[in-house]
């Protein structure tokens, strides 16, 4: 599957404050898909596959009448919550590589207007188990704070790593005119002194919540250059889970928590033929900074031993940090619809069109939601990386 498909179209609505999008969710989805088709130079009627992840409701068959879809050939939803955001790109590439469809859209749309559309159903699916709800636990922020205590108290995660991750995200958001959090200035002191809805995390360690729709359009690599944009080839986009699922976190063989990616990342490096040192820029899904930093370790960008040195603000900044991360602002500073913004930014970095463009990008990584019970990661590359 390596290099068999490429992202040739990208469409995105503006970020809106949650519950305030001017359009219903399905219309947002359609706007993003049509924009992705226009971006590539493909007739929307020729899109014949639709994939997504998590609780996405806007399935391909529901969109056909607005798009004029001629022949819907592929539709699939990847498990589970945010963990599938990057793997959905792999699902689309798999469909193309196996001849199931020719032009596949990866769509994620969220508009949280109305009681049944709040975060609880749109992302978390609102079905926390009784043992949590009987004990005052319901919000995702509580679950991430619970696991963060283990990382901070037991595993040796330095608070400075969280601070650097969060500040790098907001630094890029401040320089991205499309970022929802572009006006939030966050220095070390402001981060440290921000309130804590759930300790031991701070407010700014948690992702945003927005209305928005984002679509990526993929075609087979051999015709990727027939379209208008520089193709972003899918070198590998595996899914899976290492160390057991969710709730109380999984543990690796060293007794420290894993965000679930260890085996998934290994397969990504093996299939692509590249490793963490080759990656030019990375978008790490940040439901919470603590889980995201754990995913950076899982991917092998650093170890527990050199984590504090690696996770320095200056290392994480475009254009020339050691590993610029979350260059649109990410889930913390750009906007959050279940990680879809990270996929878009990973493509923009390959194209050279990011607001915080990294110099001479050849390999661009994007990860799915860490700590989810099922996770994924995707490595995109330029033509010369094939």
């Amino acid at each position, binding site marked *: 599957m390596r290099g068999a498909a490429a992202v040739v179209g990208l469409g995105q609505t503006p970020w809106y404050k949650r519950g305030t999008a001017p359009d219903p969710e399905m219309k947002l989805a359609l706007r993003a898909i049509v924009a992705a088709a226009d971006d590539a130079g493909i007739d929307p009627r020729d899109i014949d596959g639709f994939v997504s992840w998590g609780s996405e409701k806007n399935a391909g068959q529901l969109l056909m009448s607005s798009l004029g879809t001629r022949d819907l050939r592929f539709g699939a939803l990847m498990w589970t919550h945010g963990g599938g955001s990057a793997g959905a790109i792999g699902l689309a590439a798999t469909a193309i590589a196996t001849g199931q469809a020719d032009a596949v859209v990866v769509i994620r749309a969220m508009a949280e207007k109305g009681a049944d559309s709040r975060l609880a159903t749109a992302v978390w699916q609102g079905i*926390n188990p009784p*043992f949590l709800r009987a004990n*005052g636990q319901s*919000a995702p922020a*509580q679950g991430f704070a619970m*696991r963060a205590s283990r990382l901070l108290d037991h595993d040796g995660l330095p608070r400075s790593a969280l601070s650097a991750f969060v500040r790098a995200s907001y630094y890029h958001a401040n320089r991205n005119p499309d970022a929802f959090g572009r006006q939030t200035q966050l220095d070390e002191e402001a981060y440290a002194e921000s309130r804590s809805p*759930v300790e031991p995390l701070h407010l700014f360690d948690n992702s945003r919540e927005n209305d928005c729709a984002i679509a990526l359009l993929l075609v087979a690599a051999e015709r990727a250059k027939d379209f208008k944009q520089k193709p972003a080839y899918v070198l590998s986009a595996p899914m899976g889970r290492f160390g057991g699922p969710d709730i109380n976190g999984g543990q690796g063989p060293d007794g420290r928590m894993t965000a679930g990616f260890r085996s998934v990342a290994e397969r990504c490096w093996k299939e692509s033929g590249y490793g963490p040192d080759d990656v030019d820029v990375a978008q790490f899904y940040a439901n919470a900074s603590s889980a995201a930093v754990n995913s950076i370790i899982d991917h092998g960008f650093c170890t527990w031993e050199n984590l504090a040195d690696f996770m320095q603000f200056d290392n994480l900044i475009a254009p020339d940090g050691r590993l610029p991360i979350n260059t649109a602002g990410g889930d913390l500073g750009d906007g959050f619809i279940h990680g879809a913004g990270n996929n878009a930014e990973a493509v923009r970095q390959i194209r050279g069109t990011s607001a915080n463009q990294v110099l001479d990008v050849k390999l661009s990584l994007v990860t799915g939601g860490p700590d989810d019970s099922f996770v994924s990661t995707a490595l995109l590359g330029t033509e010369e990386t094939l």
Partner: protein
Amino acid sequence: VEYSFKRNKLIGFFDAGDEFWEALEEGVFRLSRCAQCHEWLWDERNETPPYRCPDCGSWDQEWVEVDPKGTIYAWNRTNQPFEGVLERRDQVPYVTVVTEIDDAGGARVTGMLDGSEDGLRVGARVRGTINKPSPESKGYATVSWTIER
């Protein structure tokens, strides 16, 4: 016996199992192990017994009384009320802990922290108390934890 939790049944994607809640309501802390090979059957990450013993393949389980003591595996402090658990609005701020049980193969069980927060950290020793169903616990009996000094 008419169990309170059955009148207030919460549907979630994992559950500890009716036997766990029934025992708690009877004032007993029970966890599950394989009836055949006696391996503890408790997915420590999701606080739920698997349906089948992954070691010997048995589908049969037994619920064994366990001394509710262990160490704090993880904790959080909730400083604002959250949708879904607004019954605890007046208890904010409150601390919830995940306890790794001593005598049950590393099983982990979530509960509220009782009493002083002094010494609250991962690794702190705690002892459990079983509480009757209440509106705050949504009609479920619970086990809560006190830091040992």
